[in-house]
């Protein structure tokens, strides 16, 4: 069971949240090529290791925020708001 520290509500069990996938994907400009558009829609990093991802506190404040989580261990290194910078990569 993941314990996720919602920036607004504090630590809650994972069943209150849903994961919205990879964070920091910028929407391409309207003049983008098909390849750029399909990269944006479908292609993902899907790393084995730290993943920067969006979560939503569905059964709580219903806010979106970001999580830095290791996909091998599920250990959460950082939780940060949508308007905050991503954490420095771990050394």
């Amino acid at each position, binding site marked *: 069971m993941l314990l996720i520290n919602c920036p607004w509500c504090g630590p809650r069990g994972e069943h209150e949240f849903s*994961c919205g996938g990879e964070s920091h994907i910028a929407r391409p400009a309207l003049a983008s090529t098909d390849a750029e558009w399909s990269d944006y829609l479908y292609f993902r*990093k899907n790393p084995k290791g730290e993943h920067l991802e969006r979560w939503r506190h569905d059964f709580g404040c219903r806010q979106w925020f970001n999580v830095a989580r290791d996909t091998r261990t599920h250990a959460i290194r950082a939780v940060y708001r949508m308007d905050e910078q991503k954490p420095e990569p771990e050394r």
Partner: protein
Amino acid sequence: MKRYSAWSLFQEGLGGQKGWRPAWRAAAPKARYDAIIIGGGGHGLATAYYLARNHGLTNVAVLERGWIGGGNSGRNTTIIRSNYYYPQSIALFELALTLYEKLSIDLNFNVMFSQRGLIIAGNSRHDMETIARLIGAMRLLGVDVEEITVDEIKRAVPALDCSPRARFPVFGGYRQKRAGTARHDAVVWGYARAADALGVDIIENCAVTGFEKSASGRVQAVETSRGRIACDKAAIVVAGHSSVLAEAAGFRLPVTSYALQAFVTEPVKPVLDVVCWTLATGVYVSQSDKGGLVFGGGLDLYPSYAQRGNLPIGASVVGTLAEQFPGFGRIRLLRQWAGIVDVVHDSSPIIDETPVPGLYMNCGWGTGGFKAIPAGGWLLAHQIATGKPHDIGAPFSLNRFRTGALIDEAAGAGIAH
């Protein structure tokens, strides 16, 4: 290869079972192969087997990081069916089902394919409308599905709660008679043994870590935990680890890796002789030959490479099963496990050459690729050997994510993703 038969069994019985040989050689890597298949799951092994059998290409190696069948092919709930929605998918899964029907004879290995039938129950009026639409499409394309009434479901699956007060009431459903289950390990071992007999090297404990490309960008060797191995062509067939190897080769994929759980109970006397699935919950169950109830449900809904399931989904699947099959609630759970599945946006596989010339791939089967093992291997082998996609494989290109020609089975066939 020593053929298995009633006679060989009898002979070994007389000789004290001392004449059995390992089903495949423990091959050491050669310096070079015509084709290297990365991943010793069902799809990788089937690819190697059909390369040798259908195309005469025998200087082939299968490189497996762990042991043969240690991935999803040895962790799945073994349901085989072809009740998909789109013509492209039906062609693919019908090819697989037809090959499965002859597989034990073809491989000289009993894969225990049991066409016990699949029953899908609808739990609302809307489910029944979906079912009418789905089976209409499937029947037009020749899939053996038929609508069935609540009474027929009650007779076929007496353990399922079909009472009017049920939490998930049953309104009716449909059946595919040719669907069923097979023994997962046997499928893997059968392909490994048959490929080995044709000269394919099966190399376990050999993880691929990188790719070496020629000046023109073509793959010319793979780097592995057992050294560099040169090759003319290579194929990535690693399910949940597809993105990791794609990154090593320098491209990205429309794949996300998730954990999918499965469960088995202690063995009990025969209570269920079909595969049963309900639309409202996506939970499905069958009874193994040993008597255990084998069941599963939806994905753990965040990316994962941890080969274990999470508690909330586990509890929900187990609770749902006990709710729908009240009698099963008293049976003890024996084991729970998970595999890492490769999910793409349209829930259809990718069988294609990659952006790296000479490097091919087969992935994206997500939660449902065991049923497709013979077809995945057949089609990828065709493309590797001839350089051109097979007609049935062509729609499952990587390029469909650029052109938009998706085969959206998630929306079409209502499968549990």
